[in-house]
């Protein structure tokens, strides 16, 4: 009998914990539909699958990545992505060998031109991958960037 009440009690406790957990998570969900699972993904394919719904992508020469060949400081690597495709919906920038490859994702409004520039951190020498979703299809391009001082950890 006592064991039964104990079980009931612990079950109720778990339910409360779950509710509190959900409660804590809601403000963030309200702030932004931030794709946490995609940013936490440790593999490029996982990150893409979670971001675009598919890991398949077609290499395209219509995406231009502007990044230095050698980045002296991995903490600040300027990257520009320009796509000359029609109907670009979103652009994502990944660093292939970072612990969490996805660095940033941009969703474009109706009037936005398919080009973004930003600065990212890179842990070590690897490819910068630009993934562009246009007209329901996913295209990608990559460029190798040599990093002399890593920008993650320290």
């Amino acid at each position, binding site marked *: 009998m006592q064991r039964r009440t104990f079980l009931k009690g612990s079950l109720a406790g778990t339910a409360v914990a779950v509710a509190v957990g959900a409660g804590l998570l809601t*403000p*963030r969900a309200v*702030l*932004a539909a*931030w*794709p946490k699972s995609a*940013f936490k993904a440790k593999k490029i394919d996982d990150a893409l699958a979670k971001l675009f719904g598919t890991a398949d992508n077609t290499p395209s020469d219509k995406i231009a990545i502007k990044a230095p060949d050698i980045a002296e400081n991995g*903490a*600040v*690597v*300027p990257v*520009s992505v320009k796509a000359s495709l029609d109907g670009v919906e979103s652009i994502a920038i990944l*660093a292939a060998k*970072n*612990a*969490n490859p*996805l*660095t*940033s*994702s*941009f*969703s*474009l*409004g*109706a*009037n*936005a*031109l398919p*080009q*973004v*520039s*930003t*600065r*990212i*951190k*890179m842990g070590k020498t690897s490819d910068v991958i630009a993934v562009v979703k246009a007209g329901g299809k996913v295209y990608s391009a990559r460029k190798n960037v040599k990093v002399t001082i890593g*920008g*993650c*950890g*320290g």
Partner: protein
Amino acid sequence: MASKTIKLRARAKGDTVTVKCLIKHPMETGMRKDKKTGKVIPAHFIQEVVCQHNGNTVLTADWGPAVSKNPYLSFAFTGGKPGDSVSISWVDNTGDKDSASTKIK
């Protein structure tokens, strides 16, 4: 609430408006350790940046911790003219936020 963290410029060239902005933010990954105490510095990074032109959203950026400290963002859109307003707002993982707006030159 953070304040005055955004430097924003918008310039029109013909029909195309180029927006450049710099945000002051530590962009802490949550993986670095404090060298003195050996403790992990908690993650603190911008998660979402929303850019609007005359109240219409032009670009929404979802950022992870791998965007550099004091992030720079530049993008372009069509259909803007000098005098229109462009605004940027960001929210980070601690719920901190800021916004700024400027007129297109």
